[in-house]
């Protein structure tokens, strides 16, 4: 794969024209992103009206495509249609903000929001000139991994590591990609390497814990999470709460959740987790722990397990087993379910 064609690889496009290969794709995601890329090319080329048309087509396919909303807004602005552009800029920001970020105790890359088409497009352009820099490869890898494409991300990280060999941070990211691809043993080797340089890296400890859990090593995973808790600053309450929840250590999680709620009162998961923790330490909750809309099935199963624990341990066990079966190993509830099961 040539350096500037990372997104093309992901979208299986021909390199002749950005997105050209996917313009006829039946997959609206691919087609929408291709239209966006064509629009960006036209925008850069001064064909602003034509670019607006491309972005509008992309938005018909993907109405919540924040990058396309923002690019359309900027194009309208460039055309002097300021009043039309203004609400569109706002809409793009609202769309990005509405996306649920990843857990705050994991690598920063899982907390990013967006499709990153604009960024990848730009990094690919940078790669046409920047031959000795690992950064664009790394950034593309992160974008791909954040979208759930570990194998493609791995290729980016490998290219970055060719330029900056043995870099512990790049190796840790490669480990994340390996872990997401289910190659836990290799992932752990990568994390071990990264941690040898910086043993206090909280996110890498979390990543290794997840990979260890993926291999069935709950004790090893818990040890890493406990170390992560040691190194996480007191100010990062939500991250600390998440680690404690993975350990099913609800007494530790509770005060951190209180702080997290104080800081982000509109985050439904902190309230849900607070209810969960209160229930597990035997304290009355404030309200029913409603699982937020769009939650993963495993999250729902876990909550059922928590409710069942008060009266029917066998039923709780079933729910926790279902949590593990249906959820990714990185999910907080899956990690907590493992710990709950180990105590039943």
């Amino acid at each position, binding site marked *: 794969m040539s350096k500037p064609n990372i997104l093309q690889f992901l979208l299986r496009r021909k390199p002749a024209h950005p997105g050209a290969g996917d313009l006829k794709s039946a997959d609206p995601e691919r087609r929408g992103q291709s239209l966006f890329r064509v629009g960006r090319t036209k925008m850069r080329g001064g064909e602003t009206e034509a670019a607006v048309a491309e972005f509008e087509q992309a938005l018909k396919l993907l109405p919540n495509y924040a990058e396309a909303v923002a690019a359309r807004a900027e194009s309208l*602005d460039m055309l002097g249609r300021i009043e039309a*552009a203004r609400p569109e800029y706002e809409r793009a*920001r609202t769309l*990005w903000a509405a996306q649920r970020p990843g857990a705050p105790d994991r690598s920063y890359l899982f907390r990013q929001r*967006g499709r990153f088409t604009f*960024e990848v497009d730009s990094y690919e352009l940078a790669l046409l000139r920047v031959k000795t*820099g690992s*950064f664009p490869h790394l950034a593309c890898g992160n974008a791909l991994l954040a979208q759930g494409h570990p194998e493609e991300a791995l290729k980016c990280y490998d290219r970055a590591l060719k330029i900056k060999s043995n870099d512990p941070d790049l190796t840790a990211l490669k480990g994340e990609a390996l872990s997401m691809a289910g190659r836990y043993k290799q992932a752990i080797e990568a994390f071990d390497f990264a941690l040898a340089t910086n043993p206090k890296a909280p996110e890498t400890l979390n990543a290794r814990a997840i990979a260890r859990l993926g291999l069935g090593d709950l004790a090893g995973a818990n040890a890493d999470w406990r170390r992560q808790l040691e190194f996480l600053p007191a100010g990062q309450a939500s991250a600390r709460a998440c680690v404690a929840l993975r350990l099913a250590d609800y007494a530790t999680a509770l005060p951190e959740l209180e702080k997290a709620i104080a800081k982000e009162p509109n985050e439904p998961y902190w309230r849900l987790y607070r209810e969960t923790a209160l229930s597990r330490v035997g304290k009355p909750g404030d309200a029913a722990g409603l699982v937020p809309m769009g939650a993963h099935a495993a999250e729902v199963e876990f909550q059922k397990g928590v409710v069942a624990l008060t009266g029917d341990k066998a039923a709780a066990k079933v729910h926790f087993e279902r949590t593990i079966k249906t959820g990714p190993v990185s999910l907080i509830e899956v990690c907590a379910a493992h710990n709950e099961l180990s105590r039943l």
Partner: protein
Amino acid sequence: MFSVIIYGRNDSHGYNLHKRAAISFNALAEVMSDPDDEILFVDYNTPDDHPTFPEAIADTLTEKAKKVMRIFRVRPEQHAHLKNRTHLVALESQSRNVALRRSNPKNRWILYTNTDMLLVSRNPKESLSDILGGVPDGFYQIPRFEIPEMLWEAAFDRKDPAGNLAKLRDWSVRFHLNQVVHNFMPMRYDALGDFQACLREDMFAIHGFDEDMILGWHCDSNLAARLALYRGRVDTLIDKAFGYHCDHTRVAAANNKGRKTTMNSHDRFIWNVSSPYLPNQAETWGWPDVEIEEVRLDRETSYQRFTAGLDRAIKPATVPFTNTSCEWHLFDDLTYDLPHTLPFVCDQVLTYPKTMAVMLAATRPDFVSGFATAWRGMGFTGPILVPQECEGLPAGLPGVTTGHFADLVGKTDLFIFEFGLASQKIDEPTRTGREASALDKKRLKVVERLFREAASTEAETRPAHRRLARRFIGVNVIYNKYWPIFTDHVGANINPFCSQVLAGSPLPQPTGMKAKILKLRKRA
């Protein structure tokens, strides 16, 4: 809502610095509307005997700018450990981190910009506080537009920021100023360092600016690369605000040597960044354990301190003028007018840290008591160290410590040597041809001996915590026999006789035999 972080130094960085900085400070304050908003100016490595840069131009700042500005003064001594690693006299990463550490924790946003920027909201009714208060968490940049030097220099009124912003709205259209210069990601726009808005908590999470970047340039791009990794995206506020830069390339700044400019490595700090975090400086960025002085322009100003000190120490003059003379036949007359001289002595010390210790070797008792009163009145809390070898001086003055010179010399941060006539009274006329009495000569001899010893052994007696030479102030050392003696040992400028005061750092001591002999001959 937000803390603006800028930095600089009381020097002449580029063309007409004072005007463009005043324009910028006032314009930044003008777009603030939240009570927690603040402009944090790090005054980095301004010489100790200078005021900070904003103090030097305070008369050109609006009341609002003075109110919202907090100045963090990083002393040359605090920079000394980095001095040999860089050709620069002001370091961007260290400055910005010092401010970030000490920024108002209530503020959600940090805005990094520079002292020549004006930020113009596209909706004139919206302040920058409104704008930042209304956007979601993220990392935002805006494009920078250039203002031709003639325009800002000729047409802007420093103290009319609202008028200046209105002019920009007009000029941007009339003179086609608004050209967006796109750039490779993560530097979304060219000259991105003039507007990077990010969450305060994000900056703490990634450990601030990279303090290994001490050669100048690209600190902004490094930050963009790391925040782009951390957030995934670099967002724009182009719909909300435009940034205008007062172009200043008529005269190259100290860090601009054209193609020969020394810079931080582009490859290392941008294209090979592999993590948003800087674990090696996680505990130390922004010098959390270093006491950084904070200076305000709206309270306890230097002028207020100066007058508070002198009002306590001297009474107003009762005559229209007094007389002295610098005629050569009066060379041996060491009388001087104390109430006239004391303000010039205080002027020499006012900009130093309030906690410093000063050694005062003197002949005149009224000089010691007057200076001690002014010292406290100016808000200094450090001790005045008086060698007990100097006889006839008042005892028991508040804040004055007496002891053997040998014991005190290693404790002082500054030296004052006063060469007057111990027998002179405050109401005596000056420079009328008076000769020194035996007692005067005896006292002067002691002060001279201590001066020579202090100046020639300054490096050896310097306190362990200091890396830089301590400053020497000579009182009554112009156009008399102590002029050559003082300037043999201290690198002082030529000052007007009227000030009576010279100051400078000790000169290097002669090391070769020839130099030593020459020095001895001179002394003889």
